[in-house]
């Protein structure tokens, strides 16, 4: 397949998560929903379920308002909305971590709003690096294992180790894809988004295979030219209108610090016989994210360093409205970029946004800044 054909396929998947889920169910597989920002998908995979990302959808909120005040982010609210209107019907459970205050409340509301899909909490430590933090992550994973066993899953150390390898290989493919895409400005922002988004809706070895094929196809294609490279940072950047504006403005994503994209793939499961401990160590090694305690603000440094390393022209912060972890990080990001002479702009988005005029104006000004 050509890279265009592969992108079309990925687009289909990214656009129709429900069809993906139904297809897995039709094959007799069980699906477990995985809410943002991090969940131990490796465990779900190893215990014989299909992990399916549940990051909400771009739709109006109606039913969720029975539970959520308006000032909760649209990602959490739309996850609840989709649950309430039956879009996730057939899923065996949902895993919701408590990495931000809104996610803590999402889990509690879920129990009453979507009674037929069991809620599995995943409690991560913020002091994740010391031994006591690793032990606590492991205890959280054991809890998830116990819940999945109740749903018919079987736990086996060797199977988990194997799933960790599946995920590590997928991580490597996604990191490689990000590098390759940095050299291919002709790939649209929407295509890039589809490549990442589809990962949430496919069994990981299937997705790895297709991404590896895409990488090979891209590497065999001469790179396009003439667009300005930017770094995007935030939780999500998958709205078609948003991506269309980037293309229209002659900007391309040469690196991302998006929670639903590269942040998922930066860290591998290390070697180790006890797979659960190794997986807990993976979490301990994770950094550079607004929902992971970071006294040094390493994330800010990573953004600046990536901009320099990839010759990127500017940073576009895509702020999910009401996402307070990201809102807090924005100020140090802005300061660090300004100190390093890197143009930086913020656009606010949410999953119900119908009008992108404000975003367009901001991005236009940003583009003009980059052209100077």
């Amino acid at each position, binding site marked *: 397949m050509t890279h265009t054909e592969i992108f079309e396929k990925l687009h289909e998947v990214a656009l129709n998560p429900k069809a993906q889920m139904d297809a897995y169910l039709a094959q007799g597989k069980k699906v477990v929903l995985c809410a943002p920002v991090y969940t131990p998908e490796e465990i779900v995979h190893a215990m014989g379920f299909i992990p399916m990302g549940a990051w909400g959808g771009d739709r109006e909120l109606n039913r969720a308002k029975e539970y959520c005040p308006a000032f909760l982010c649209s990602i959490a609210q739309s996850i609840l909305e989709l649950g309430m209107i039956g879009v996730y019907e057939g899923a065996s459970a949902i895993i919701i971590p408590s990495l931000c205050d809104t996610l803590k*409340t999402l889990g509690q509301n879920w129990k009453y709003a979507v009674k037929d899909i069991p809620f599995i909490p995943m409690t991560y430590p913020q002091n994740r690096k010391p031994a006591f933090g690793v032990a606590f992550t492991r205890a959280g994973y054991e809890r998830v294992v116990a819940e999945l066993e109740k749903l018919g899953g079987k736990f086996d150390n060797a199977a988990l180790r194997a799933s960790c390898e599946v995920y590590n290989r997928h991580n490597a493919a996604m990191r490689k894809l990000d590098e390759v895409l940095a050299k291919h400005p002709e790939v649209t922002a929407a295509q890039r988004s589809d490549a990442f988004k589809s990962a949430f809706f496919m069994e990981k070895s299937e997705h790895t295979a297709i991404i590896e094929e895409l990488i090979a196809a891209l590497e065999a294609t001469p790179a396009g030219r003439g667009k300005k490279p930017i770094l995007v940072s935030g939780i999500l950047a998958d709205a078609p209108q948003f991506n269309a504006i980037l293309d229209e403005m002659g900007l391309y994503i040469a690196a991302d610090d998006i929670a639903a994209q590269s942040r998922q793939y930066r860290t591998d499961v290390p070697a180790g016989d006890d797979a659960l401990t190794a997986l807990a160590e993976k979490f301990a090694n994770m950094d550079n994210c607004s*929902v992971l305690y970071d006294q040094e603000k390493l994330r800010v440094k990573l953004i600046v360093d990536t901009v320099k390393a990839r010759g990127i022209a500017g940073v576009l912060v895509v702020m999910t409205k009401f996402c*307070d972890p990201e809102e807090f990080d924005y100020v140090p990001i802005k300061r660090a970029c300004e100190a390093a002479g890197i143009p930086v702009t913020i656009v606010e988005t949410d999953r119900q946004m119908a009008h992108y005029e404000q975003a367009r104006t901001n991005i236009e000004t940003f583009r003009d800044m980059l052209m100077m």
Partner: protein
Amino acid sequence: MAEEVKKAPKPVDVNSAKYKLGKIAADAYTDAFQAKKEGKIVAWVSSNFPVEIPETLGIATVYPENQAAGIAARGAGERMCNVAEADGYSNDICAYARISLAYAKLKECPEQEVAMPDVVLCCNNICNCMIKWYENLAQDLGVPMLMLDIPFNPDYDVPQSIIDYVSAQFWDVVAKLEELFGLKWDDDKFQEVTGFSCRASRAWLAATACAKYTPSPFNGFDLLNHMAVMVTARGKETAGEAMETLYKEYMDNHANGTSTFRTEEKYRIMFEGIACWPYLRVTSTGLKSRGINMVTTIYADAFGFDYNSFEGMIRAYCSVPNAINLEKSRDKRIKLCKDNNVEGLLVHTNRSCKLWSGFMYEMSRQIGEACDIPVTSFDGDQADPRNFSEAQYDTRVQGLVEIMDANKAAKGAM
């Protein structure tokens, strides 16, 4: 205006709980300034951080949430929020954090000055917003941050894994503070501090439980002020003594048929959420003028740090209101409503606090059902005055009164 006749000020009764508690709260600020002057260590501390640590180590404490509440109550919330927003902070961020980050920048605010910190001590048992806020404080002020992570517990009881994790962190924070500042942990002092903290907590619980009497011997808005002592000074000897005085006064009031709610108590409600500090008078008058006494709030339970073992202490810190699941949060409130003969629930949907408000709709429905009482909510904010409408508050409170009246009539008719 020389001819203006001034009313003689009421003589201050230095033995009253009000005086004692007010003095302790004020001293907390001056003590920190004094400590700074003497070259001692000053920490900025989250309200539900185990105070046993700084108290035992002799570290002076400042509580930014308490400072922000003070600033907001004195009318400077919006001004300080504007400073933070001009720096790029979204107005969706908790207003306490915005005010505090603005103070870290300006290092002055006449409405409540505080000593600047040598370290910030963060505990996220009330919210993860705290982590982000303190990360930025530590960066802006160039001081170390120590983080005691108490995760939100999705289960009803505190599991051993959380106890082990938090206990290990407790000693880790102690070791780090010893190393950073050359301090020495003293077990005897620790025992003494835990004794003070438990004594203050017991007296607080006893005083707030006096709302079980009808009429209540106190106006629930008192609690919102006295609570400052439980936040900032519960590890000090004076706090226990003053809280005991408060308890005694409430019992005396009950015996004498008096109350600090100085009008006829026609209705008894529970108030849910943080006070709207910028509108304390408006919100209080809106109730009092209708004869509504807010007899209880979750704060009555929130500072019950009464324990008899190290593990018990850790468990208490893991069980503060925002760290517990919906069912446990609900049951604590149902108990308060039932113990105190509450007839209605008034919920502050606080724009600053995602965690507190995020499952409040469902929880208050369940409380209303279990206690057979009406539930009403209003929109507000604990410190940003732009998010409150007096008209809406008034309408909602009036609505609550009407249902409580109807309920009373129905009961009377039975």
